[in-house]
């Protein structure tokens, strides 16, 4: 059982964490015709926007209430009102998702009350859903923002059970955590449809940020789940929540509509997918399609082939809690040792990570741990690139942001097939690293007084040539 610890240093170096408001805004990006709006200074939006654009290489809708110093002193009502009206008139969105920031939380803007006033004053907005989430920058992290936003969307937009309480057992709701990529969602959709189920994803990033090319210029999101479909989610037979972060939204859904939910904390690895397939088979009344029987075979074979390379590796990994739990557990099951684990925020899954200690820290902590514990495999988002270069160990990019490689939106890690490919990718990195940096030399196994015989991951010969 892992203990979660918080370092005592005053200065975060090379942050792993990103802020709550952009996590919240990210959730709104999976809604069709949506315009996420950060209630804060325009830099809050600009930084987030740049980050999303660099990750997805897509146009990303994200607006700001452009709080100035004076507005911050006087309160943000007018800025919020103007922003909503401007967006309503120009972008004609189907929904506006509003996230607060550190600035507007510190000065105490009561956005819920503002929205009431704005609605009273502007009857033309009556039919436009305005969803507000409180996401101060100085608390929590990206994943928390997502979690809160999805819970708020369910709370506000899903309609209660219909009069006769009827539900369609072939319909399922899927509440994916923010660690799933559009590629993961597409894979999930295919799996569910193969069981004859009709899924509604909330949020559905695969509809908006999968990189498709619309026929015309659209200022809002170019796809995702529609407001009407969200409203009808109460008519589904089941809700499937993926990642611990989605428990809250699933509970809200159940409380509002009575739709039962099943939480899958992981979808990467053999065991979690066996469990998932069993569940789908049960709720659909259909046997697991032969396609997935074959994929299961392929995954087991991949595990056999890759365990030589992954087994015994000392893993240094930093990610948001759910992704950390998923990836580190899968690699642990492949024989890797989780030697250093760093995460961003408190979560119930942290203590179940297969390591002694999980640090709520930054990439400097990860780098230091990786160095002292002689780790020889690094997994984190793109900001780990500098650490990887200094540590000179294989580096697999996972999570958000991934700005220095293409195809971030299509990286797959779930299902039998996704796990299979992920295992291959990581094993191949290890193989390439061995060929490039760890070729045996005549002196490699020669006992030497100056150097210890067993020196972690790097042999004496490499040190002398490094």
């Amino acid at each position, binding site marked *: 059982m892992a203990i979660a610890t918080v370092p005592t240093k005053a*200065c975060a170096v090379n942050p792993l964490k990103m802020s709550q408001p952009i996590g919240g805004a990210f959730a709104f990006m999976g809604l069709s015709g949506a315009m996420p709006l950060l209630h804060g200074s325009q*830099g809050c939006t600009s930084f987030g926007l740049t980050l999303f654009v660099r990750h997805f290489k897509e146009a990303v809708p994200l607006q700001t209430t452009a709080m100035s110093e004076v507005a911050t002193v006087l309160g943000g009502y007018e800025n919020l009102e103007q922003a909503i009206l401007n967006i309503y008139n120009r972008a004609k969105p189907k929904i506006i998702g509003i996230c607060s920031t550190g600035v507007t939380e510190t000065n105490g803007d009561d956005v819920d009350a503002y929205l009431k006033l704005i609605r009273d004053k502007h009857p033309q907005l009556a039919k436009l859903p305005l969803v507000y989430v409180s996401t101060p920058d100085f608390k929590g992290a990206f994943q928390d923002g997502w979690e809160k936003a999805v819970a708020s969307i369910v709370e506000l937009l899903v309609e209660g059970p219909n009069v006769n309480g009827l539900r369609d057992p072939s319909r399922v709701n899927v509440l994916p955590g923010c660690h799933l990529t559009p590629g993961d969602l597409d894979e999930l959709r295919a799996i569910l449809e193969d069981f004859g189920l009709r899924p509604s994803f909330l949020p559905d990033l695969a509809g908006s940020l999968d990189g498709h090319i619309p026929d015309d210029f659209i200022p809002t999101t170019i796809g995702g789940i529609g407001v009407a479909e969200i409203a009808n989610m109460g008519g589904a037979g089941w809700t499937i929540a993926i990642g611990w972060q989605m428990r809250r939204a699933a509970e809200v859904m159940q409380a509002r509509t009575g739709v039962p939910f099943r939480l899958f904390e992981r979808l990467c690895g053999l065991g979690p997918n066996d469990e998932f397939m069993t569940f789908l088979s049960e709720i659909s009344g259909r046997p697991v399609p032969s396609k997935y029987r074959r994929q299961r075979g392929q995954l087991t074979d991949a595990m056999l082939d890759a365990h030589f390379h992954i087994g015994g590796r000392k893993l240094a990994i930093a990610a948001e809690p759910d992704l950390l739990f998923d990836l580190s557990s899968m690699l642990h099951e492949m024989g890797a040792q989780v030697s250093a684990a760093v995460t961003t925020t408190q979560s119930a899954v942290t203590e179940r990570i297969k390591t002694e200690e999980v640090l709520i820290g930054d990439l400097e902590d990860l780098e230091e741990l990786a160095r002292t514990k002689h780790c020889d495999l690094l997994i984190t988002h793109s900001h780990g690139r500098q650490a990887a270069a200094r540590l000179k160990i294989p580096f697999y990019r996972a999570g958000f942001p991934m700005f220095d490689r293409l195809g971030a939106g299509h990286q797959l890690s779930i299902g039998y097939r996704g796990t299979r490919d992920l295992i291959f990718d990581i094993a191949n990195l290890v193989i390439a690293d061995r060929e490039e940096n760890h070729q045996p030399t005549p002196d490699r196994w020669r006992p030497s007084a100056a150097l210890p015989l067993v020196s972690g991951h790097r042999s004496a010969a490499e040190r002398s040539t490094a």
Partner: protein
Amino acid sequence: MSSLAATVKDIFSEPGCAKNGSKSEAERKKGCTKQLQPGSAAGGCAFDGAKIALQPFTDVAHLVHGPIACEGNSWDNRGAASSGSSLWRTAFTTDMSETDIVFGGEKRLCKAIKEIIDKHDPPAIFVYQTCIPAMIGDDINAVCKAASQRFGKPVIPINSPGFVGSKNLGNKLAGEALLDYVIGTQEPDYATPYDVNLIGEFNLSGELWQVKPLFEELGIRILSCISGDAKYREVASSHRARAAMLVCSKAMVNVARKMEERYGIPFFEGSFYGIQDSSDSLRQIARLLVERGAPQELLERTEAVIAREEARAWAAIEPYKPRLKGKKALLITGGVKSWSVVAALQEAGLEMVGTSVKKSTRQDKERIKLLMGQDAHMIEDMTPREMYRMLKDAKADIMLSGGKSQFVALKAAMPWLDVNQERCHAYMGYVGMVKLVEEIDKSLSNPMWEQLRRPAPWEALAKAMMQMQSPVAAIAHDPALAEAARRARKICFCNTVDLGTIEDAIYTHDLRSVEAVRDHTNAVGGCCRRRIEDVLASSPPAGLQAAE
């Protein structure tokens, strides 16, 4: 030290600003405090601007005092290049928590400064103020002053919280911090009559190194570059330069003008974008240095280098001329002087169909008119939708712009080239302009575009098949569609209740009579009585049974 508000006011009345100079007296009085439009604003905040302007200082630790958003969401996002230290790419932030906001963040800031010095011992630390500590009253000037004294090391406050204004204002506030705390605080090891400063050049993609060899060949020493590939010591001793070139006037005009005022360093505004501009800039530098006492022969040597470089560049561009002839380009950028790039592109054979003049001065606009003719399409502000239409309607063959409008062009399946700060190619000087032409050609002549614009061949086939087939046939192909269509059939027309609803009710509540169905659904059971009886008679559909 004046207050932040006074500094901002001072910047807005900058006499060296060309835009300011071209305004009428009344306009000037209003200042540059353009109110940002909530809900339709784009662009960074003042903190962003200050960070951009100073981050290229390579050996300095940049410490952001604020919550995680300011640094966590933005670090390591710029392609400035360093010839030495990589400390500038390490992100430092106080990551303020709720407790800091309640009790004040000054103690944490002070501890953070100490931690950085213990771990990295940089020549200086730049401390950036952000909105929240500004709101709660953290006095970073005082903390920095105390830390400087305690640790015996320059700790410089960059007072530029995001909400005071735009990115551009932030650039200038950063400049003010350099003037107040850095420039003139150290002496260079030696001085020569050939020492110059480059102000407002950020070495993006290492573009400074495209022109630096020319300086070296001429024996001109770049004493300091503010702030591309800058080292703290160089900028601290930059007041001993003999002349200065202001490369991006929009960012740091205040620095150049005040250095002239304080240290008598004459400056001129120039650019290394475009062949003609590069030559003009080299000439001007040589002239200023000679005026300040450098030997006369520098002018001749400069002319010789210019002649050689121009000949080389034109020879390199020549082969592209027939390939680019008549191709129409749209230039949307504020960062570099539009007219300077316009001239170069025209030389390469491109036809300019429009250029943005959002950040240009009146003189700039005159020059564009001169270059592009009276009917030049000068774009003050173009919405993404208009850009998209222009490209989609093939009024332009290629768009050159900043990263923000990238996807407008790409989604219209049109060639696009990044000419702003996120670009990965360097376009400065003579070699840079050749590179730009090369990149334009590479993009325009890529066979991919033609493939992309062609619709998938099966679209037409699918359409033809659709027309031939009745809707019934279409449904028959898809069991899900067929089932949906079946269930959607109206049973009760009075209250619009469909078959699916009634089937579900019958199944869930095990109903056996029309009356029972009436109780559980909205069906009236009058004119639709017979139909409901039929439904009752038929067995529940297979899908529902399986789901149980």
